[in-house]
């Protein structure tokens, strides 16, 4: 068992430290995300999954994100909060890597963790991530776009044109998705290997622990218990109350408008056909028209009466007969069905 642990390969070492460190720091980072969102300092684009991954993996993305954002022009959102968030993530990640590193060194590697382990692990991970992640980004983007266009052109051939749309979508997705996922996985493992290789020196320089397994477990278990539990509880409760008050005081009362960069495509629906409204409108129009017809008939009857009266009065009386007034135009709204 001990030999297995001591002969841990670099990719296992990288994964074993980074994976728990990602999740250890995330809850604290999410609190700041929420606060910045309610203050309107952060606006995420449609690729929220990518933004989540970037934040989750901030020990390795912290230096890579500016390169990816400015160098490769791939944004995750807008607002000063994003830069602030990744700055705040630095101390959180150093703490998380320290907690995870100490546990990992004692339990899995049976070695004494050094002083300042969190900081050492952080700068090594951030450096590897800063160089390797933009390369991974470029490689995966290129592979994905090439795979999509290749598979798409394959299905444009006469032989495969007959494949129905639903089947075509799924087969295309499986084909280019397998290639893209394969490359992504391969490069991710390579990334973990690089991190493991880079922090291998820190592991080598650590002294072997002398206690037995039970003793080591008790040590790392007690390491996670704060020295002053009452103070810790009071500080946590106080922090939670302050953050909750800040959140509720900054929460917009009405739906916040999205930033220009992050407007969602509008889902359009055909103007609704409302049978009751249409019937009501038609009824109104008919009533209006009936009133107009009635008015016209009345005018005509009056004119005829005036005509018959003036018959015996000669030519002068003829001039007095007026043409009935033109009917009032029907309002455009009433004409619509």
């Amino acid at each position: 068992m001990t030999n297995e642990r001591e002969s841990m390969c670099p990719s296992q070492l990288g994964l074993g430290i980074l994976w728990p460190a990602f999740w250890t720091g995330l809850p604290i980072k999410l609190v700041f995300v929420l606060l910045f969102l309610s203050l309107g300092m952060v606006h995420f684009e449609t690729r929220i999954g990518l933004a989540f991954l970037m934040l989750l993996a901030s020990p390795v993305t912290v230096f890579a994100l500016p390169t990816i954002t400015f160098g490769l022009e791939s944004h995750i959102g807008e607002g000063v909060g994003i830069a602030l968030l990744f700055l705040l993530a630095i101390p959180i990640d150093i703490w998380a890597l320290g907690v995870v590193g100490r546990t990992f060194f004692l339990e899995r590697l049976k070695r004494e963790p050094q002083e300042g382990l969190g900081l050492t692990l952080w700068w090594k991970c951030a450096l590897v991530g800063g160089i390797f992640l933009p390369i991974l980004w470029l490689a995966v983007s290129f592979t994905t776009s090439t795979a999509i266009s290749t598979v798409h052109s394959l299905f444009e051939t006469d032989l495969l044109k007959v494949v129905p749309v639903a089947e075509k979508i799924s087969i295309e997705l499986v084909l280019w998705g397998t290639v893209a996922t394969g490359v992504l996985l391969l490069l991710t493992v390579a990334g973990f290997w690089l991190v493991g290789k880079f922090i291998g020196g820190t592991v080598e320089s650590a002294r072997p622990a002398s206690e037995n397994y039970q003793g080591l477990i008790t040590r790392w278990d007690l390491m996670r218990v704060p020295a002053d539990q009452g103070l810790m509880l009071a500080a946590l409760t106080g922090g939670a109350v302050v953050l909750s008050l800040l959140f509720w005081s900054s929460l917009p009362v009405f739906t916040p408008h999205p930033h220009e960069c992050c407007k969602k495509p509008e889902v359009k629906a055909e103007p609704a056909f409302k049978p009751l409204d249409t019937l009501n409108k038609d009824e109104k129009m008919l009533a209006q028209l009936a009133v107009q017809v009635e008015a016209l008939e009345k005018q005509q009857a009056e004119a005829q009466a005036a005509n018959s009266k003036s018959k015996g009065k000669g030519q002068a009386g003829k001039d007095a007969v007026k043409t009935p007034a033109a009917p009032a135009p029907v309002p455009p709204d009433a004409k619509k069905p």
Partner: protein
Amino acid sequence: MSHTPSTNTEATIVEKVIDFVDERIGLKLLAAKMLNEPVPGGSRWAYVFGSVLLFIFIMQAITGVLLMFYYVPTADHAYASTQYILHDVDYGWFLLSYHFWGSTAMVVCVFAHMSQVFLWGAYKKPRELIWLVGLALFGIVMGFGFTGYLLPWDQRAYWATTVGVEIMDKTPVIGDFIARFLKGGATPGQMTLSRFFVIHVMVLPAALMGLAGLHLFLFRSAGPAGPFRGTPEELKAKTDYFFPRQIWKDIVGMATVFACICALAFWEPVVLLEEATPDPGDYHPEPEWYFLFLFQLLRLKMFSGELGQFVGAMALPGAFMALLAALPFIDKDPERNIFKRPIALIGWVVVMAAILIFTISAIINREFLD
């Protein structure tokens, strides 16, 4: 006259209240039983999903009750009252958006919880009943999503329900009855809304509370399964009580999920489409995202026609659910390590990959419809 000497350890008011309740209902014993449960192999993040699900349900109940203060469950006013909540009620947009994304989080956590139990082999003897009740709870969560989707009474709600009820109609023998019962008429209308509302706010919460209680009782009776690998020495060294470490992990898990739901409510607040009408217009009806894979599956040519639709919509999902229910009775091998159960591992990967592929395909398929 004798006086009791005053001591510094005199009970505070809180302690007196606790003692008062304890004398009557045995509170301290109950708390000890609840909190001092040994967790074999120690606390783990993988165990937080059950508690997180309970938390999401409580939050859904709270936000749901607050929404009901304004929502009017009639075909004439459902849409207008939802718009009123979104645009006029203070923080109404946040409540409704939280409730909407909370339902999504519940489905995600149910999938995660079921996957964890499956991969850990925690459905095996003596935990078969926990698994079966869990499956029923899964059905209830899906029912919540389905019935709640209609309530805003916009085009999306109306047509998703129409599609869903049509799929149910294909069930042999009882399908026609279920469809007629849910719709309450030839097309979705007031009766449909009333029935979905009652099921959503009365029937399903009551069923969920009862079954969740039973699930917890069975879980406490059988005890936690613990990790599927590790030497007895390791397990013994790491075994811990439920309080405080697992509770701490559960609290962190709940806070994380709460923050994620709030962030999603900010990222995409609920926006309604046009009011529901029997004319879909340009809108292409589709169900909620967690049913999209099934919807896309039904678009495949092999599932066209009356028989194909029945096989795709009812027979396959029904057979899959029956297989899940029978799983503890088929798989009697006590081995729990997932890496030593290749069929289970491959099966899980295939199902997850199929759900993912068909869900993404359904999203891509939208481009062909627009």
